[in-house]
């Protein structure tokens, strides 16, 4: 069980779930969460490769940086979504329309 392929399989499943979520979800927050899934699948990849593959810590450092940047992205993303909610009173991205009233 504790092999590189298990981790790669988990990360591939997470990646596909994330992409699926981005394509079918219409709620802005859920899309944001799906994108976070893709990012964590990449992090799993990086850490697993660093642990099982080449003997360098580069991958784990990359994963740490990626986590911090993901948080920054999520903060900005939620701020933008909140602002959209204040303007349109909805965060369903299909219902965003310039002509729509408050």
């Amino acid at each position, binding site marked *: 069980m504790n092999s590189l392929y298990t981790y790669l399989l988990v990360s591939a499943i997470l990646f596909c779930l*994330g992409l699926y979520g981005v394509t079918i979800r219409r709620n802005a927050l859920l899309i944001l969460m799906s994108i976070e899934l*893709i990012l964590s699948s990449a992090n799993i990849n990086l850490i697993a*490769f660093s642990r099982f593959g080449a003997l360098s810590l580069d991958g784990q450092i990359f994963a740490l940086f990626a986590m911090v940047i993901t948080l920054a992205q999520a903060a900005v*993303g939620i701020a933008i979504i909140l602002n959209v909610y204040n*303007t349109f009173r909805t965060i369903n991205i299909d219902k965003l329309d310039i002509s729509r009233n408050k």
Partner: protein
Amino acid sequence: MDNILSIKYFLPEISLIVTSLLILPLSLIFKTNVRKITIPFLTFGFILSSTFLIMNWDLSGHGLFLNLIAHDRFSQLFKLCLLIFTFFLFLISLNSSELKNISSKEYHFFIFISLLGSFLLVSSNNLLMIYISIETLSIACLILVGYLKTNKSSNIAAVKNLFSSLLSSAILIYGLSLVYGLTGTLNLHEIGHSLSNSSINNFSITVIILIILFGFGYKLTIVPFHIWSTDVYKGATTPITAFLTTVPKVAGFAILIRVLATTFSNANFTLVKYFHLSEIITVLAAATMTLGNLLAINQKNIKGILAYSSIAHSGFILMGLAIFGQEGISASIFYLIMYSIAFIGVFTVVINSNTEFQLANLKNHNRLNFQSSFSTIIISIFLISLTGLPPTAGFVGKFYLFAALIKGETKFYWLVIIGIINCIIMFFYHARIIHSMLLHKNEKHIKNRYDKVSNVILILLVIPTILFGIYWTPLFDFIKQSLHFFMP
């Protein structure tokens, strides 16, 4: 080079960081007359950064901070271009009516941060550095697009930009993690080394290259991403659209060129054959320029036309990267610089004419406010340069691109034919803008808001457009000599 020694070459970036961090407290201290304090201060920041850049101009390459950042001729050329473009964009945004009534201190802060991100991006030599700088650039752009908090179109553009930019960066980091797994290193040059030595399946590498191109694609607005980027360009306020169509795109192409040159090509800048890179890029280039041009024909307002036109130009720039080699890259860089100059020029005129014009139907001629024949002549010169007619620099750029396609070992005659057809389409919709300006008199007399600064900027932008159309050899040779990449 170790950390202490590298600081000397990192001073342009440091001065950008310090200026951007000081601007927020400064604008809080001087609450009255904020503009009188901040504008000279920011100008000083630009001048300081460019002084450090020129003082430490170095013909040999260095790897800064343990080879994370490359300080070579290529990165210095691009840093200088980005600095000048952003300075012009900063000056023209001061005159914008859309940004007039809101507090602009954060706006300048984020302009500086995205300039910092693009500085790091053009000089990054490591996958980690590429990811961090792309994120710095795109997070700043996310906020800039949604800067008008109460404006509905700005809000919609911000959401679209948010999801497309987050998705592309998520997929980019997934691709980068796979590259790391295959090669065991993050350094660009070492990745190329281990890819050429190992016995990894070529098909899987091609798939990974496609994933990474997907990640860069949103910055470069190549074909599957044009849908998202045009909506963002149309929705954002005009000074920010001008910023988005030039600075992130220049930085994105710079990093694409660096990745291709250090990882996927040999010393003569010949792309390695077995990953089908050349074929992928030719198809993308042809699709990008054709789709961008065809969609631009139907656009009714000037921002829409410029948004699609910018995508078509991305296709032209990609054309030179498909052939690669010294000729191809330098033709692409020449074209990229000339495209940015002309685009900044066109947007200067658009920002200075009234706000309604930017969103107005082109046929709705009452609204057009080109009172002075000066601006009509200037915008015509830029549009002629974008179309690629002599005697402007755009013609030279297109000429070198087509020449590079025919000169190389593999000849891309079909791509040249597609490119020429696209030039004709491009001429049609660029001429529509000039036509609507020349033939339709405006009836309303709205006060012309041209000031001296934007006139000077326009003249400064017209000079290279004409000059390099007549005598282009010095610039072209300079670009050719700049193709020097630091490889540890």
